[in-house]
């Protein structure tokens, strides 16, 4: 259970790593975020950012897509090769491909630039809340629930997903969505519900985040043992986790 040991303390400020080459913007962001209770570390290049992200200190990484040298996607790819630290991508507006690519590589969420700083804080808090949830349960010594359905087991405390006993990496958003779907296995969960419970924001039909997350989960978990689709999309409504009893 390597994830249970993550230290958590309500008083300790969360360390956030910001990787963005816009020096002025970084200064403004740190001025804005520090009173909100974040401990910011700022770097301006991908190489440096990668090194810091893998140091194990930051609780979350805010990563800009447009970076000199190795770009944001590459940084994310290399982070994901070694670490599960939550990542919030800052993308250029109007580049929907960027957003989807980011989520596919394993970003937890994205925010198009230019953004309202209030929105940035909200997104960061949502991600941190998701990562903390499990740790909180462990800290409070609440009996930790785990959901098991056929070959898949989700440990809510350790925030671990196992398939046939083998743990898989999923991002915070993917974890929440999978939990949502598993809890209502055999029933349709609407995109609205998934957006609100898993991502903590209102559903927007233009936002393909949910769909990208679900397709990542599908890819990671594969089909059911009998070859049937594990998560079915229900056109215009949402998704359904196939439950053997309902088949």
């Amino acid at each position, binding site marked *: 259970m390597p994830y249970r040991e993550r230290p958590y303390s309500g008083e300790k400020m969360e360390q956030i790593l910001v990787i963005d080459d816009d020096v*002025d913007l970084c200064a403004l*962001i740190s001025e804005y975020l520090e009173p909100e209770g974040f401990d910011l570390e700022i770097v301006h290049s991908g190489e440096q950012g990668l090194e810091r992200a893998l140091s194990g200190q930051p609780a979350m990484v805010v990563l800009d897509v447009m970076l000199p040298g190795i770009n944001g996607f590459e940084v994310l790819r290399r982070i994901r090769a070694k670490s599960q630290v939550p990542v919030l991508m800052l993308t250029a507006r109007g580049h929907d491909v960027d957003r989807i690519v980011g989520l596919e590589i394993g970003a937890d969420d994205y925010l198009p630039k230019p*953004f309202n700083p209030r929105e940035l804080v909200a997104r960061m808090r949502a991600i941190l809340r998701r990562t903390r949830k499990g740790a909180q349960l462990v800290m409070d010594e609440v009996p930790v629930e785990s959901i098991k359905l056929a070959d898949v087991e989700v440990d809510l405390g350790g925030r671990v997903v196992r398939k046939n006993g083998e743990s898989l990496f999923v991002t915070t958003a993917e974890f929440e969505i999978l939990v949502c779907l598993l809890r209502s296995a055999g029933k349709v969960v609407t995109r609205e519900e998934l957006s609100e419970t898993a991502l903590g924001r209102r559903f*927007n039909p233009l936002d393909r985040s949910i769909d990208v997350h679900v397709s990542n989960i599908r890819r990671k978990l594969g089909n059911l043992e009998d070859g049937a689709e594990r998560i079915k999309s229900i*056109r215009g409504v949402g998704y359904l986790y196939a439950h053997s009893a309902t088949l």
Partner: protein
Amino acid sequence: MRTLFFKIFIWFWLAIALLIAASYTTDLSVQQDLPPQRLRNFYGNTVNVYAESTVVMADSKGLVGVQTFFDRLKRSSNIQAALYAGDEKLMVGNLSLPEVPELLKRAATGYQVEFEFNEGFLLAARRLVLADGKLCTLVVLIPRQRMSLVRDNPKIFYLRLLAQIITSGVICYALAKYLTGPVLKLREATHKFSHGELSIRVTPRMGRRRDELTDLARDFDEMASRIETLLQSQNRLLGDISHELRSPLSRLYVALGLARRKSGEAATEALDRIEHETERLNELISQVLMLARLESYPNLTEAKPVELQEIVEKIAADANFEARNQSRSVVITQAEACVVQGSGELLYQAVENVVRNAVKYTHPNTTVEIELSQQVVNHQPMAVVRVYDYGPGVPEAELEKLFQPFYRIGEGRDRKTGGVGLGLAIAQRATLLHQGTITASNCATGFKVEIRLPAITFSNEGRTENEGLHTKDFQRV
């Protein structure tokens, strides 16, 4: 069969087949004979043989024997012969033709065969010496052979005709293939190019061929690489502009957030105004960039099935929420399930811009109505979005210009309604990109904008609980 290949093939073959037919027809009707020189060679030997036979017959059986020989010749070959003495006196046989005396005179000059050609026959004469040393002249009348393959050997005639037609067919096929092959490759390339595959080139696919068509291919390649470079640099420029313009905006937003936190109540109104203007600027940049992108790309790069109904419902809800502040409202009067192949983001923009435009111009305390319906035109299902407003409408003469970028009707009025004048231009470009049309017209109660898009499939009834489970027709999103 309207292909160039087929046309070239058929026309050339037809021409050659007609040529063959024409040559046989003239052959049959004119019935040309062999040329005289060849007749001389051919019949010269024959006459020599007859002459030797006559000498032998006369020697062994006398003149009676010669008469028998002549009779047999007449019976078997329809050749008539006569033997004249040196003084042109008839000895055996009978040939009373006016040409004979003249021919005898010519034959008297030596031992060669002399000929006289006539319409229906040829006369040949040759001197000979009988065994008793007597000089005589043999005259032979040979009916002229009509040379005709059809009559003489129909099997060979038709075989030859068939061989000629087939050979010419094969050659025409090869010719047509050779001529149209590069044209087809060029056409395929231009088609792909126009559908956004900008890196396509034709010259490598032309092989070692060198002619006007490969020149054309080379010119196409040059043109294609120029366009590709232009589009790439334009795209890069757009990306740079977008980044450079937005970086200050990003900083502005965060600075604004800081200012809000530090300032008191008194500054709120001014800061709100700054935020509003910043948003407008951001919107303007987005729209200008979007328009530029829409115009530089001839086709959608990635198209997915898009639920129009879902989009329309979301737009109506949002627009209604905002319109209520201005004592206007937005309702959906009809919404049928329609699925369009395309970009959800662009379609959303297109419809949203039209709806926002309607909200802007409809009179206070009126309702903007949105109608989404399905139609089948020439077996092509169409999704039709109609947006009605109860506003003043637009002068007929200016309807067309509505879709031009930055076009405004009545400069003064627009200032207060806000907007940058790009909404409808973007809506039009986005619709065109989906092979759709957008039209604006005045109606009795106000103004109407209609967007028609080719739909991929839809059910006849509205959405039901179970319908959602029929996912197999749709690509997974």
